[in-house]
């Protein structure tokens, strides 16, 4: 970055820097015209100049940070982010802490109960299918397991609801539940809101947010948690009021278990509620109970599968390396990191193919570009400028125009095949397959990237003095020796610059492989696009993108070391 024109130390004129140096050299304090020490006033000037430069840069810097750097960071974040499991199944994830996949046994009742509370809430918000498809990337079958379980989860706990209601009709009334669970201030706020909603026209304020009664979370912990979830979803999702809705069946199940755990719960209440609750607590031990694990197994056999539970546990962390493992054909299984089965491992192959094809494209660009650059650098400027237009025209032509040209030329009914058939070199029924394979991608991309090789090579070769080769020849070198020992080593920086540039561009190419690559000529970038727009596995797309980004940045670092980013010239 430090060229003679921008490096502060290279200026010889009256810059603040130079004046400061003069001031340092002078003996005794120098004073500026207004009497302040010169050093101080110069420092102020320097600071002002820095500020002004930063002010000019700031708008663009902020723009780039928001519109470009933030998206890249977001992508990096997404490649490890995995909050969906712990957000959708919060209770289950906590309950699973005590369970160990290695034990070979299914989780205990508490886990299934937690799953019931989580799943009924997730189902009400339609989040369970999203979690299902997320976990399906890891273990196939989980998607349908969640989808089907969602349909029947509402009925879990119906046994308890029926028995509570048989005991006392009050258990069916929303108002009784609200009285039991809601805080008194909320009940007052709600009543006031309801009155205003009935009286005033155009009253569109939302119902006040449900608040739990003080202390109920200690007395009836599971019920409080399940009921407040119910109240929240009723208000937000259904735009309804908990005062008018009967709770979900699993809330009754929670109440049953709370009453078994804490038969004295009624002590926290007074009046009619204490009475009803007390009666329920007394009757509860005699209730017909439901084997929750069996209930889940009846809904879907998958809930008896250790793999499913292992997967949920393995991905219960909010951050995961799972996507990165998937990008290199490994998978995070409950038993640890394993290689994917051979028929599913494609990413290593794709990375290898991307590298291989980029290298081939780079190689062909060197082969084709070197003679051209040499010719351009030896011809008189007038001629070479005209020939340079032939290089710049493809460079400036739209990428899609060039890709469509190759599609037209290479396809089986295309121009090249037509000419070959017309010449009789190829039989009409044996037309060459030159497109939708690696060959097509390599040819088209070599054509597209060739100018990026020629231009840096040309700019390096222009600076090689022809006298060296002449001197070598006059000292007795043959043409080949003079070229190989004298000219070629001087052109190596150009080859390096062009190669890295072409390689970097090739490795991240998307459009051309997509259009002429078929199935065997596609790159890793096509897979990234596929995961973003078709399979919707964004995390995996982000992880693949992150790996590609790291490779490219390392290559750029090398490029910067060899040529310097500043020397990027645009023709």
């Amino acid at each position, binding site marked *: *970055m430090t060229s003679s*024109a921008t490096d*502060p130390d290279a200026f010889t*004129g009256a810059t603040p820097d130079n004046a400061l140096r003069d001031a340092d050299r002078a003996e005794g304090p120098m004073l500026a015209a207004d009497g302040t020490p010169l050093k101080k006033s110069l420092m102020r000037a320097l600071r002002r100049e820095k500020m002004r*430069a*930063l*002010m*000019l840069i700031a708008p*663009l*810097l902020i*723009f*780039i*940070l928001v*519109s*470009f*750097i*933030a*998206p*890249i960071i*977001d*992508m990096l974040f997404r490649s490890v982010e995995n909050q969906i499991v712990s957000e959708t199944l919060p209770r289950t994830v906590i309950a699973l802490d005590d369970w160990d996949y290695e034990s070979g046994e299914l989780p205990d009742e508490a886990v299934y109960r937690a799953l019931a509370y989580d799943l009924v809430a997730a189902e009400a918000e339609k989040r369970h299918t999203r979690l299902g498809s997320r976990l399906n990337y890891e273990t196939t079958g989980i998607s349908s397991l969640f989808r089907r379980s969602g349909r029947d989860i509402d009925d879990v706990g119906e046994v308890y609801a029926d028995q509570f209601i048989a005991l006392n009709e009050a258990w069916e009334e929303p108002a009784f539940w609200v009285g039991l669970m809601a805080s008194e201030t909320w009940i007052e706020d709600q009543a006031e809101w309801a009155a205003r909603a009935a009286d005033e026209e155009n009253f569109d304020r939302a119902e006040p947010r449900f608040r739990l009664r003080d202390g109920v979370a200690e007395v009836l912990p599971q019920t409080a948690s399940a009921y407040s979830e119910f109240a929240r979803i009723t208000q937000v999702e259904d735009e309804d009021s908990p005062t008018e809705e009967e709770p979900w069946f699993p809330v009754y199940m929670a109440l049953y278990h709370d009453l078994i755990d804490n038969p004295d719960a009624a002590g926290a209440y007074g009046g009619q509620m204490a009475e009803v609750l007390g009666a329920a607590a007394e009757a509860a031990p005699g209730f017909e109970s439901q084997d929750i694990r069996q209930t889940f197994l009846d809904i879907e056999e998958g809930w008896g599968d250790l793999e499913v539970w292992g997967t949920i546990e393995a991905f219960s962390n909010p951050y995961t390396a799972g996507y990165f493992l998937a990008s290199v054909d490994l998978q995070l299984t409950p038993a640890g990191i394993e290689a994917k089965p051979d028929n599913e491992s494609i990413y290593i192959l794709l990375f290898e193919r991307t590298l291989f094809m980029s290298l081939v494209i780079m190689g062909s660009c060197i082969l*084709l570009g070197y003679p*051209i650059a040499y*010719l351009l650098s030896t011809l008189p*400027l007038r001629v070479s*400028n005209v020939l340079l*237009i032939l*290089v*710049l*025209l493809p460079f400036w*032509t*739209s*990428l*899609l*125009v060039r890709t*469509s*040209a*190759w*599609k037209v030329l290479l396809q089986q*009914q295309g*121009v090249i095949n037509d000419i070959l058939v017309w*010449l*009789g070199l190829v039989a009409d029924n044996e037309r060459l397959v030159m497109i939708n394979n690696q060959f097509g991608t390599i040819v088209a991309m070599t054509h597209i990237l060739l100018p990026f090789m020629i231009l840096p090579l040309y700019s390096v070769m222009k600076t090689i003095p022809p006298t060296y080769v002449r001197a070598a020849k006059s000292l007795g070198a043959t*043409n080949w020796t003079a070229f190989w020992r004298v000219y070629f080593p001087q052109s190596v920086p150009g080859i390096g610059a062009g190669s890295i540039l072409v390689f*970097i*561009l090739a*490795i*991240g190419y*998307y459009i051309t492989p*997509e*259009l002429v690559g078929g199935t065997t000529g596609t790159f890793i*970038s096509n897979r990234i*696009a596929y995961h973003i727009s078709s399979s919707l596995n964004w995390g995996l797309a*982000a992880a693949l993108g992150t790996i590609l*980004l790291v490779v490219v*940045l390392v290559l750029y670092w090398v490029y910067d070391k060899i040529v310097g*980013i500043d020397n*990027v010239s*645009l*023709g």
Partner: protein
Amino acid sequence: MSELTVDTPRPSLTGFTLPLTTAFGAFFGLIAGSASGSVLIGLVAGAVIAAALAFGLCTLHGNKTIRRGHGKWIGAAVFGVLGLIVGGVSGLLAGALIGIAVGWFALWLHTGAYRDNVPIYATGPQVLWHNTFLFICGAVFFFLIAPILTIIPLSFNAENFFTFTPEMIALDPEGYSLKHYNDFFTNPDWQQALWNSVKIAPAATFIAVSLGTLAAIGLSQSHVPFRRAIMAIMISPMIVPLIISAAGMYFFYSRIGLQGTYVGVVLAHAALGIPFVIITVTATLVGFDRSLTRAAANMGANPVTTFFKVQMPLILPGVISGGLFAFITSFDEVVVVIFVGSANQQTLPWQMFTGLREQISPTILAVATILVCLSIALLTTIELLRRRSEKMRGLSPG
């Protein structure tokens, strides 16, 4: 000073020029023959005609009736007439082309012009290698340009094919039509796409140029803290592969509700165009004489006046060519817009991309031809600007 004249010996007619020209003619004969189904006749006819032509030309040149440059026209006339007899209008054209090649080749050999660009002491193999090298370069240039030139005639195809029809080869006017251009200008899909491109690209260019120029001026000041890091951030949209930018922008813009909006696409394209503006404008500023702004300030101009009256006119060529780069980046861009945009923001390249993927119509070729013309216009503009800028800065015109 006495003038040095070199007397290059004429190569032997019967031992060098005639056999080579005959072989050259035989090669074309072979191609023409195999195309029309009779290889042997073509081979012999090509050889005989070429030999006769070479002999005639060399004799005429020997007694100074014609100069070297006439060879190709005489060849074109001879082969063209023969081609017209054998294959009609297209035969005339093909024959004329072959004639130009053979006629030029015969006198090129006969006059020793093939040694023009090599030192006189060069040995035979060296001369051969030099000419082979030129031939290889010609082939590479052909590889660079031919695909682009091929689609231009194909875009006038009267049929819905992506290849030359027999009518086109016969130069039959019936084989050509403007229907694909007509389709482009009447089809609402294409018009919508064109309109979107025309809306998005200038807006993105405007943002990129205005912010980019300011920042480039800031960066070229003598005291900028963290210059390297800032430069790296600003160049990064050019470095990061497009698919990664597209993925990141898709994720992030969906989060903040910009995905599928014009604003989102314009912001994304502006970000992609900014590095080009930064690079071209800083390159212009490197040669900028800073004493000019000091002189202006000395004479009482305020910074704004100095900027518009002194600095701006001098860096304007750099700004405009940076703007053109930014414009073409946005106008040609397809990967990011596919992800960041929605169907409403379908641009011209996107429409071409879908068209190519689903193989719908050769209208794509008409669009491609129009775009090639556009890029030629842009290339010319940039070249003129570069010369003007170098002239203004006192560098020799390239």
